[in-house]
C-alpha cells in the first residue's frame, strides 16, 4: 500500500543549521497494516509522516501509495489517498464553520468542489448518524460552530472527518497527545474501532510504549532518521514495555558510546 524507497530529507541543507532528518528510509507497508511508530524527540517520526503526506518534497528517494508514484505530488493532490489527524486538535477543523459545514468539507476530500450547495439536505442525516456513534451528544449540535467545542470533541470530530471517505492511508501524528487521559483513551478506542471496521492502512505515532505495543500489528522505532526496529506478528505481540525500553536505551547507548569514542 505504501512503499518508501531510500527516502532522504535534510532541513536547512547547506547551512550551519543543517539537520539530517530522514536517513535513507525504506519501508513497505501492506494494505490493512496498522503500524505504530515510536522514537525519541527529533527521531524523525513526524517528518516521516509529513513526508508521506506531502508537507514537503523529499530530497531523494521514491514514495508510492496505492500504486501511484506520489513523490512529485503536492500535498493537496495526495489528499485523494491520505487522511491525517494532527496532534493539535485545532489543526483538523475549521473553528468558524459549523459541524455540518466541516463534515461536508471532509466529505469532499480529494474531489472537485463545484457550485452545488456546500451542505446538502440529504447529508444531514448521514452526519447525525455518524456523530451519534461518538456518544458525545454532538449529533444535536450540527449548526454549532466548531470553535465552541472542546479539544477532545474537536479531535473526535476530526477522526470522524478523516474517515468519512475511506482513505487509502490514515496518518495519525500523536493525535491523542494533547488531550487529558480520559479523553485520550476515548479517542484511542474510537481510533481502533474505525481502523478495524474499515480495515484502514494506518500509521500512528505515539509516545506511549503501552499503546505502541497494544495497538496495531506492526511496530517501528525510529532513531536519528533511521528505522531502528521493525517488529510484526508474534514478535510484536510478545513484546513487553521492558523489552522495548531496553532496545530503546541500547540504541541510544550505542550512540553515546560512539560519541564518547569520538570525543576521546
Amino acid at each position: 500500500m505504501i512503499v518508501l524507497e531510500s527516502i532522504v530529507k535534510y532541513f536547512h541543507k547547506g547551512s550551519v543549521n543543517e539537520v539530517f532528518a530522514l536517513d535513507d528510509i525504506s519501508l513497505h507497508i501492506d494494505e490493512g497494516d496498522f503500524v505504530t511508530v515510536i522514537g525519541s524527540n527529533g527521531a524523525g517520526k513526524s517528518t516521516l509522516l509529513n513526508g508521506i503526506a506531502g508537507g514537503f518534497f523529499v530530497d531523494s528517494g521514491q514514495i508510492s501509495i496505492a500504486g501511484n508514484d506520489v513523490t512529485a505530488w503536492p500535498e493537496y493532490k495526495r489528499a485523494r489517498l491520505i487522511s491525517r489527524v494532527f496532534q493539535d486538535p485545532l489543526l483538523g477543523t475549521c473553528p468558524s464553520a459549523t459541524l455540518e459545514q466541516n463534515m461536508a468539507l471532509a466529505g469532499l476530500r480529494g474531489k472537485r468542489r463545484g457550485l452545488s450547495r456546500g451542505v446538502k439536505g440529504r447529508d444531514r442525516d448521514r452526519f447525525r448518524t455518524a456523530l451519534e456513534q461518538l456518544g458525545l451528544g454532538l449529533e444535536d449540535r450540527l449548526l454549532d460552530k466548531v470553535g465552541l467545542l472542546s479539544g477532545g470533541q474537536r479531535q473526535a470530530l476530526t477522526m470522524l472527518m478523516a474517515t468519512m471517505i475511506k482513505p487509502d492511508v490514515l496518518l495519525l501524528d500523536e493525535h491523542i497527545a494533547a488531550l487529558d487521559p480520559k479523553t485520550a483513551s476515548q479517542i484511542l478506542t474510537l481510533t481502533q474501532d474505525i481502523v478495524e471496521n474499515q480495515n484502514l492502512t494506518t500509521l500512528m505515532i505515539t509516545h506511549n510504549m503501552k499503546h505502541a505495543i497494544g495497538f496495531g500489528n506492526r511496530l517501528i522505532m525510529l532513531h536519528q532518521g533511521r528505522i531502528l526496529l521493525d517488529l510484526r506478528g508474534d514478535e510484536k505481540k510478545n513484546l513487553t514495555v521492558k523489552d522495548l525500553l531496553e532496545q530503546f536505551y541500547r540504541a541510544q547507548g550505542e550512540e553515546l558510546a560512539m560519541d564518547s569514542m569520538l570525543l576521546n
Partner: protein
Amino acid sequence: MTFYAALGAVEQGLVYGIMVIGVYLTFRILDFPDLTVDGSLPLGAAISAVAITSGVNPYLSLVLALAGGFVAGMATAFLNTRFKILHLLASILTMIALYSINIRIMSGPNVALLGVNTVFDPVIQLGVPAHYAGIVVFGLFAVVVLAGIIWFLGTELGQAILATGDNQQMIRSLGVNTDTIIILGVGLSNGLVALSGALVAQNQGAADVGMGIGTIVAGLASVIIGETVFGCRTIARAFIAALLGSVVYRLAIALALGAELGGFRFNPSDLNLITAILVIGALIAPNLKKRLIER
C-alpha cells in the same frame, strides 16, 4: 444635513458598498490584507469609461471592468502564492503598477463621460426622477452582488474559500489547492471593487486616475463600522453589515462635513484624516477594552 446631502451619502454608500463587499472578502474571509483595491477601483472606472466612449454598451462595460479587476487581483495573489511575496507588499506592487496601466488605458489621467449613454439612462427612461436614478441603480447592483456573494460562499467552492481563510492546513489536507483558492478569492474581490469604480465613474461623469486614493481605508472603515453596528455572527449577516456599514460611513462623513463648531468647519480634504482616525480607533478599541478589564 440637507435631504439631498443625505440622499447623496446613501447613494455613495451603496455604490462603494460593492467595493466594501470585496474588501470584506479579502480582509476578513481570506485574511489577506489587500491594497490592490486603490488601483483596481480606478481600473474599473477607466475600463468602463474608455469602453463607453468607444461605443460599447454601458452594461457590457461593467462586465469588462469586472474582468479587468479580477485579473488585477489575480496578479497580486499570484505574486503572493507563487513567489511568496508578502501579501501587503504584493498588493502595493500591483497597485503602483496599475497607476501607470490606468493612464495607459485612458491615454491620459482622466476620461470625461459627458453626453454618452450610462447605466442610468434606461432607469430614467422608465420614469424614475434623475436624482433618484443613482440610488435605484446602485441599490439594485448592491443587492444583487450581496445576494450573489452570500449564495457563492454557501457552495462547495465557496465553503473551500471560507476554510482557506480559517485553516489552510486543514483544507489542504482535504485536497484543496489553497493557492488557487486565494487567487480566485482575491480576483473576485478586486472584480467587485472594479465594478464599484465603473459605477462611480458613470455616476460622476468621469474616470480619474486619482479616484482610487484611500479606497482601502474607506473600505476598512466601512467593514469595521458595519461589524460594530450590525454584528457579524453569520456569513450572510457579516456581508449585509459590510454593505450597511458603507452607508453609515458615508452618512457619518456627510454629517462631519456639514457640521460647524464655532468658526471651525471640516474641509473635504480632511476626510482621509477623519477616516484614518476612525479606523485606528476601531482597531485599538478591543485591545484597550481588554487591557482595562484585566486591570
